[in-house]
């Protein structure tokens, strides 16, 4: 963990801070000069104060864990199903012919359009939210896995035939490692989509429960814009952290590709 922080610090380019800092400066000046209505746009220092209070609130961390739990549970389910269907459709022309057109057509429907059906059938609780998150993670994983399996070079397949690979060797010695670069791209995208869907589900399947989405909803209800902004910051930070971890895992797993 310390090594991870150190390597991140070494790679950090201070120029990345220029835009956020400039924005904060303009924001603070606008507030001090009273160019904006302070009820609609509080000061940055005011947001920091709100953040501090929010962190001290006993509901904050349970909310964060609740969101993360939904996110990871949905991602795990959608990711596993995505890899499995991508492999199945990638290997079998027959399954591909039978399922791909339908899956493609379903993909054209915005996932948010399913929410009324999901809430009608499954309500507003964690089950419904995780289902929605899983569906969001599923597609990028399935599509990329499919492409990874189809893209296995013919020579590698011939090697497997020459060496008389067993079924298990086919899957674990050829298919999964050969398709790994694409599968990992899919999983990384799936993780991003799952996090977007997590917050989306907390807004659109809101049930006054626990979660980062609820934090933001509370802010809006109380006309506490500072709290809304703080919620957005947390959502963004958690998303970046997840993406960073996924990237590190990918780099580690694909070290054999070289620089």
């Amino acid at each position, binding site marked *: 963990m310390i090594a991870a922080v150190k390597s991140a610090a070494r790679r950090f380019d201070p120029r990345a801070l220029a835009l956020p800092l400039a924005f904060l400066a303009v924001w603070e000046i606008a507030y001090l000069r009273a160019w904006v209505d302070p009820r609609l746009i509080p000061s940055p220092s005011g947001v920091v104060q709100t953040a501090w209070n929010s962190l001290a609130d006993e509901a904050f961390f349970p909310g964060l864990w609740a969101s993360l739990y939904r996110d990871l549970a949905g991602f795990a389910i959608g990711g596993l199903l995505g890899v499995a269907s991508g492999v199945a459709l990638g290997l079998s022309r027959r399954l591909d012919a039978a399922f791909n057109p339908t899956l493609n057509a379903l993909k054209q429907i915005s996932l948010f359009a399913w929410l009324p059906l999901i809430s009608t059938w499954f309500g507003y609780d964690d089950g419904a939210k995780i289902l929605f998150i899983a569906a969001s993670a599923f597609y990028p994983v399935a599509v990329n896995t499919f492409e990874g399996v189809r893209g296995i070079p013919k*020579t590698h397949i*011939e*090697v497997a035939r020459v*060496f*008389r690979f067993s079924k298990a*060797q086919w899957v674990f010695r050829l298919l999964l490692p050969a398709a790994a670069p694409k599968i990992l791209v899919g999983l990384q995208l799936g993780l991003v989509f799952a996090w977007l869907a997590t917050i989306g589900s907390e807004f659109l399947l809101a049930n006054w429960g626990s979660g980062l989405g609820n934090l933001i909803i509370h802010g809006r209800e109380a006309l506490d814009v500072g709290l809304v902004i703080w919620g957005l910051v947390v959502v963004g930070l958690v998303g970046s952290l997840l993406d960073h971890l996924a990237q590190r895992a990918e780099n580690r797993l694909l070290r*054999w590709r070289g620089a």
Partner: protein
Amino acid sequence: MTVKLSLQNVRKTFRSRHADEAFVALDDVTLDVEDGEFMVVVGPSGCGKTTLLDLLAGLTRPTGGQILLDGKPVAGPSLDRGVVFQQYALFPWLTAQGNVEFGLEAKGAPSAERRETARRFLGLVGLAGFESHHPHELSGGMKQRVAIARSLAYDPEVLLMDEPFAALDAQTRETLQCELLRIWRVSGKTIVFITHGIDEAVFLGQRVAVMSSRPGRVERVIDIPPEFKAGEDIRAHPEFGRLRHEIWRLLHEDGERAREDERDARRLAVAA
């Protein structure tokens, strides 16, 4: 000497998407390879050399005729035949060691033995010390050495090589040719080596089967004098030049004939 590998009137056609007639890749190919022999098949591109190798490997089946290994028909790929591909076909996610080991895994060797055997064969091809390198860290010549070690390690009776040195620079190619002869001498394997290089054919082969194209046929089998395998600079030998020229002439005549056939076909097409 006993016959190891026997091709009897082998014919291979492919259905073409554009023409009604099937494309004849190989027609009436008959050739015997003896046990422990180094047989080189040389031919112009498009003469069906790779098709021939796929058939020997069992990756495809002949349309007609038969292929016998030790008198038994070849029914598919099997661990009694090893294949070295032109593009190495190493698994990039495995180390050199791992690439050699998985061939042994297919044969069901225990893991300690696999490690030991892989190490020994990497040493045999001159790659001791590179066991833990991944393919992207190796040069083209080293990759092909790994591929050769992979095919030798599980001890197939016949080694099939499909233009294995074609993608290498001239110097590396010559080094590997010498090493292949050395490995062949120590291992006593039967080798079928496919190439379009005439020099390479005369240098490596005990016999050279010269193929013609459209359809692919074995035009002639030429004996190479045994003293050519003595290890000296045989390329300077006058007999080397004579044999080289003989094969060149056979290939050249075939090329001329193919061009004439093409001209005739075009003339007919225009007349029609």
